[in-house]
């Protein structure tokens, strides 16, 4: 079933919409949630919550990219469920990703006590990603959005693991420079 047909079912408040969404994208959502939560029970809960939230938000939403829309919901719920304090014990991958991303933050920004609004970070990341070459953007998104391993990215795009690592390293450096430049804006928004 096409995405727009599923969206039509949501708009008609037909519960088959949930069924079709689960059939078409349930597996992908499970995979995404499992990579973040590393727990079968939490993954099942997260996918169910994703379907429920999709049901509650369409309508009024009419997403252009349906999979991206539900995957975003799923990712938000996953990170909401993630126990950051115990993540170090349970999920080494998240710790690894967090540590990699930490290296992108310039010193001037790491001293900001307050938590910068995630939406504002998202806005900056949108600008940053728009300016990236497609190759870099895809690798960056697979790593830090889909939380893919270096190995699976290299398999997916048929490139060497060292190429993936180099590309990620350079992209993180570019992000650091970008964030340093945008730091003033970020600070101004918060004050």
């Amino acid at each position: 079933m096409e995405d727009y047909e599923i969206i039509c079912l949501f708009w008609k408040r037909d519960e088959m919409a949930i069924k079709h969404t689960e059939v078409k994208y349930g597996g992908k959502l499970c995979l995404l949630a499992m990579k973040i939560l590393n727990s079968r029970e939490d993954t099942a809960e997260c996918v169910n919550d994703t379907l429920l939230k999709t049901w509650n938000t369409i309508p009024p939403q009419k997403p252009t990219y349906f999979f991206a829309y539900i995957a975003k919901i799923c990712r938000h719920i996953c990170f909401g469920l993630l126990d950051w304090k115990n993540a170090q014990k349970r999920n080494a991958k998240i710790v690894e990703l967090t540590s990699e991303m930490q290296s992108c933050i310039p010193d001037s920004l790491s001293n900001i006590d307050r938590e910068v609004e995630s939406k504002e970070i998202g806005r900056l990341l949108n600008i940053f990603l728009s300016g990236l070459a497609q190759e870099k953007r895809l690798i960056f998104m697979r790593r830090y959005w889909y939380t893919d391993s270096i190995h699976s990215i290299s398999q997916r795009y048929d490139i060497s693991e060292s190429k993936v690592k180099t590309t990620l390293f350079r992209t993180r450096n570019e992000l650091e420079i970008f964030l340093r430049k945008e730091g003033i804006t970020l600070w101004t928004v918060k004050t």
Partner: protein
Amino acid sequence: MDGKDLIYGMGFVDEKFVEEAEYATQIRRTSFPWKYYFVAACFVCVISVAMLIPNIFDTPVAPPDYEITLPYQTDPAPYYPEIHQVNVSQVRVNDVQSVSEGSFLYDPEVHEIITWTMDEITAYYGRNPIPAYIPNTLTASPYNESAAVLVDKSGVAVNDLIYFDFYHEYDNNGNPLLDTENGAKIGFSVAISKIGMTGDCVYVDTNNLETTYIGDTAVILGSMSTPYKRYTAKFQYGGTHYLIIADQMQLEEVVKVVASIIYESDNISILN
């Protein structure tokens, strides 16, 4: 702000990037074109050597005393036609509110109706505008062999709109027959024009217009809520405007027809 905030902030990036990363299976490599620089460098070297030794090309070369014969004639490499792949999951379809027939004001004082043969149509459009792929169940209308166009008194086309019809069945007059189930035609028509007069007007919400790229060509696909499936496809290729209106056809088939025009080939593979 720390790494956790950035990871969490990634969740707010635009959905188009998320979709792109999900469905792109190959990355376009933007490698430096070393091979072209290498060829250019070789060329410069040859020219330089030729200039340094002015008579090098004037030295007569004695013909060989023996005849060179090739031991055998190699067969030409077998030809494998290129297969163009279109991923239907990346196709975006807009909601079409309505389709209405356009009209052209014909003034007999100024205009003249002439008939073009297929050769004249091909010469005017620079290529055979008929889609390379036509579904097996459809046949070409008997009227597809020629077309009436309007020219001004100097012979310049002022309305070059031409329709090509491909439907499942026709009556004795060559008009498409309607099916008994939905009372509608089964098949599609292609309207082409270099001037940009695509005949019918397709009404879509331009604020949320989505474009599908087939090759490098932007195609605006639409679907209409009728008792049967109606798809529309509007695009420009090779300086010609195309409008396809397909009734009771699968989206994959419509996309295949569009791709066959754009790739000028019937070797189209649709990926789901």
